[in-house]
């Protein structure tokens, strides 16, 4: 009797464990499948453009006139617009982010760290369109005045706001990376007579550098995919920017501004999906690099 009850109990336990294992497995597989399906969809919708347009002309063409007759689909200006805004955002957010992470992880009394980290992460809670609107009303006139520009709708305005949007990602990951450095590294350095600052920048930062680079790359991915804020702040001029004070048009803003009016199946529709493919590939590469650095940390 006891033996048969035990057997029944074991059977039920094994069955439920089996089910749970399969659920977890399929959840993981589903995530991968969704990403693959997204890419296949992008490819299917975007690739039809290249039956009539050459890939080289698409990527290197300087003019984006999608509603002209005949239409001209050249995304070089959009690509450079996205890269300039991203570059600007990185130049602003990485020093600030690294400094913030060092302060939170190494300088602050331990009891306060969680509060500060939560504060930085709250920046991620501000909706993109709100940042864009605030930037349009306050930052754009300020940039025009400060640098005596013809218009404040520039790469710089977009970059500043995007830097704020990238900060939570960068600070959070870099701070985690600093935390992951074994305590005895610090103790060894201090024991040898190094100052606290010397310990931080000669020992802790080099040891955490893979994580720092990963944080930067994920911040880059966040910035390059940003849409509403850049649409509102950069002036959307499809030119090759020559400086941070020029207006620019990003790939993301182009998709957002024009997808609503593109009729399904039209060449304009395909062209916007083709831009989506380019964006997907760029962010995929960026995340791949970030992942590489994250895993290199284990060596």
């Amino acid at each position, binding site marked *: 009797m006891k033996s048969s009850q035990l057997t029944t109990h074991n059977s039920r336990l094994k069955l439920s464990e089996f089910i749970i294992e399969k659920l977890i497995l399929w959840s993981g597989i589903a995530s991968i499948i969704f990403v693959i399906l997204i890419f296949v969809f992008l490819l299917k919708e975007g690739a039809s453009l290249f039956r009539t347009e050459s890939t080289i002309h698409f990527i290197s063409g*300087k*003019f*984006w*006139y*999608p*509603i*002209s*007759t005949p239409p001209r689909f050249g995304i070089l*200006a959009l690509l450079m617009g996205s890269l300039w805004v991203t570059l600007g955002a990185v130049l602003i957010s990485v020093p600030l982010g690294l400094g913030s992470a060092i302060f939170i992880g190494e300088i602050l009394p331990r009891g306060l760290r969680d509060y500060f980290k939560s504060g930085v992460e709250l920046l991620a809670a501000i909706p993109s369109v709100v940042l864009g609107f605030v930037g*349009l*009303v306050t930052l*754009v*006139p300020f940039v*025009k005045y400060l640098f005596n520009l*013809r*218009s*404040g*709708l520039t790469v710089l305005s977009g970059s500043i706001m995007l830097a704020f949007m990238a900060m939570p990602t960068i600070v959070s990951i870099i701070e985690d990376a600093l935390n992951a450095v074994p305590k005895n590294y610090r103790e060894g350095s201090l024991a040898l007579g190094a100052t606290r600052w010397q310990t931080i920048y000669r020992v802790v930062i080099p040891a955490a550098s893979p994580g720092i680079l990963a944080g930067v790359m994920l911040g880059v991915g966040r910035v390059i995919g940003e849409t509403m804020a850049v*649409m*509102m702040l950069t*002036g*959307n*001029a*499809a*030119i090759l920017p020559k400086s941070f004070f020029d*207006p620019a*048009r990003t790939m993301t803003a182009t998709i957002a*501004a*024009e997808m*609503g*009016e*593109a*009729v*399904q199946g*039209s060449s304009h529709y395909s062209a916007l999906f083709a831009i989506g493919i380019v964006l997907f590939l760029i962010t995929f590469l960026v995340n791949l690099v970030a992942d590489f650095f994250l895993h290199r940390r284990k060596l």
Partner: protein
Amino acid sequence: MKKIGAFLMSLLIAGSTIEAAQNRIQIKGSDTMVNLAQAWAEAFMAAHPDVALAVTGGGSGTGIASLINGTCDLAESSRSMKAEEIEQAKKKGRDPKEFVVALDALTVVVHPSNPVRQLTIEQLSDIFTGKITNWKSMGGPDHPIVALSRERNSGTHVYFLENVVRKGNEKGPEEYDPGILMMPSSQAIAEEVSKNPDAIGYFGLGYLTSQEKAIAVAKTPAGPFIEPTLETASKGIYPIARSLFFYTPGEPKGNVKAFIDFALSPQGQKIVQEMDFVPLK
């Protein structure tokens, strides 16, 4: 018993959904017209509490594309549909019907402090194609011109392209200069022009406030230079006045037809005037 109850409940929900769908009208399109359509919708819903109208903007191109794609009941547009668009719609089984519901004076605006007060169509074309880049050419200060345009999904963008940039030659070779700043909405143009003394932009008359100054426009250098007003547009003497349209995916029926009739009624046209557009006579 539980199953029967659930089944009846789902029937009830499905029934409500069918009932609700028949009383809901989705309107999409022109940023110029979105405020006007919203005002019409509110007045119409006050008189017909059982009908729900959803009004969104997104641009005339978006409205027309939604009509073709079958995702709206009524498209608003500040430009007429192209032959190619009508063809696309028919291929998808829709037969677009056009209704002129109001008139608009397309207003060119500059900062109130800008001394330039009038421009010809030719001059406007040269500004927006990048041939003229400094205000000095037209009696203004020695400053670079900051030209602002609507985005491509806008009917105002297309109308201005065909009637001003291309000087009335719809298929002409002229294009907006790539360096033109493209603004997502008429409100964004108003915002920038009100703060930037070097800016010039365009939008529907309904967006004009005391923060911007309207430019008088003429077809020839000899004039006459006409200010955009209710009166000049109504009399047809303003050179870049235009019709505002509703499009339906077929002959309108039921609530959609009632709404269009309301918009065209004296009460609806009074709302047009209140919103600073030009009522039909």
